[in-house]
């Protein structure tokens, strides 16, 4: 898998690298993850089954009859995505650490932030694929139409923020003694703004609100995405350096 990354032409001076190579490096990391996942399908199947189980549990926990459903649909969806998301984030970083792949990646003569963005994109891809499958299943099970353009936009924005911070924190948590159990503890308190705005916007859309009414939470999501991806981009170096 690492071969893919070293395909990128080594450039002697990392500071003056043309941006074309940066994008190539990001694409290489993304491609490596997708190929690995396509061959094993470990992560994807685990996330999907886990999501369905969470929905099942919510069904019993909340007694999802028609009346309650209308008010909690958005909440149940986002709780499902958040829990399934940690599974994916943990796994995608743990594979790198376990088989020493992370060291290989770090040896590649590319900017470290390219590795971060590649990882973010692959994690985002897994999360979006799971979400795209969960949505129709949820729609069928609970007889509600979730294929609304506004909702898809909110899911995309929310997932970007979630994965952006999650990838950074997962890179830290796999290097600690407590590993897997630490990620949700680190991640959940700092992604509360994302979940809050996403749930607010989603429930607005499901209740048939106009775009103008949910502009506030959507703007908040965009702001969060921009701020945290910028910060993660700046500090990722300190997280992976040895």
């Amino acid at each position, binding site marked *: 898998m690492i071969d893919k990354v070293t395909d990128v032409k080594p450039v002697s001076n990392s500071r003056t690298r043309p941006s074309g190579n940066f994008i190539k490096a990001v694409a290489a990391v993304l491609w490596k993850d997708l190929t690995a996942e396509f061959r094993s399908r470990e992560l994807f199947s685990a996330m999907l089954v886990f999501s369905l189980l969470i929905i099942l549990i919510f069904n019993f926990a909340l007694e999802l009859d028609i009346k309650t459903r209308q008010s909690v649909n958005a909440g149940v969806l986002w709780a499902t995505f958040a829990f399934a998301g940690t599974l994916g984030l943990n796994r995608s970083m743990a594979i790198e650490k376990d088989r020493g792949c992370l060291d290989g990646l770090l040896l590649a003569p590319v900017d470290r932030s390219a590795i971060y963005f590649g990882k973010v994109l692959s994690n985002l891809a897994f999360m979006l694929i799971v979400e795209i499958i969960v949505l129709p299943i949820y729609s069928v099970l609970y007889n509600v139409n979730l294929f609304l353009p506004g909702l898809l936009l909110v899911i995309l924005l929310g997932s970007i923020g979630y994965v952006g911070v999650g990838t950074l924190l997962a890179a830290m948590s796999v290097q600690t*003694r407590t590993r897997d159990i*630490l990620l949700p503890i680190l991640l959940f*308190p700092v992604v509360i*703004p994302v979940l809050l705005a996403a749930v607010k916007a989603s429930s607005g859309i499901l209740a048939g609100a106009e775009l103008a009414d949910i502009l506030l939470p959507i703007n908040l999501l965009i702001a969060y995405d921009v701020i945290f991806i910028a910060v993660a981009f700046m500090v990722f170096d300190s997280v992976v350096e040895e």
Partner: protein
Amino acid sequence: MPSKPLTLRILDIVSVIVLGISAYIALFVAPTELVMGDVQRVFYFHIGTAWTALLGFILAAGFSVIYLITKNLLWDRLQVAAIEVSLVFFLITIVLGSIWARPAWNTWWTWDPRLTTAAVTELIYIAYFMLRQGIDDPDRRARFGAVYALIGGLSAPITFFAIRLFRTIHPVVISGSNPEAEGAFSMTPDMRTAFFFALFAFTVVFIDLFWNRIRLGELQDKVEQLKLKVTM
């Protein structure tokens, strides 16, 4: 091993004294609030601890930026000290607030922006210590701690503004008037004295504890180095 500096010893004593005076003013000098009665007196300590805790968290975020740039472990020590003292102060703020909220709002807890943000902030910094505990290498511990303190320090205010999209019932005593706030009141001159003295007292206590904690961090590092020397 260097003994405790004289200034710090004096500061220890001074902080105990000002805390005592502040308690005296809050309990005996400040007049009883008309509607809420004596329970309003927790307000002075509530604000005192809240202010110093927030100060500590903001300082910690600043220290983490400086650490990430300079990679000097001194800033890491300052950061841990600030967060640890602030974590305790903020817990006191929440507990005192709850004691006040029970008679004023008729509930121990409500999911108001300030209260929710306070709870989330506590959880962020508890997670911060769990993260640090899982790492043995001091440099890595410092780097990860700085990164997480920075992310947490950015996230907490965003959480606050996010929840603020909804209404709040928390009174704003100092400035601004929220017509929906419950338990708001205006301060008499004596209350003002008690209020500002409490702010002053807790700032002194904070500096004292902060300093002591930094010293503790230095001693811990020294012990670790000595242990390494013995085992080598």
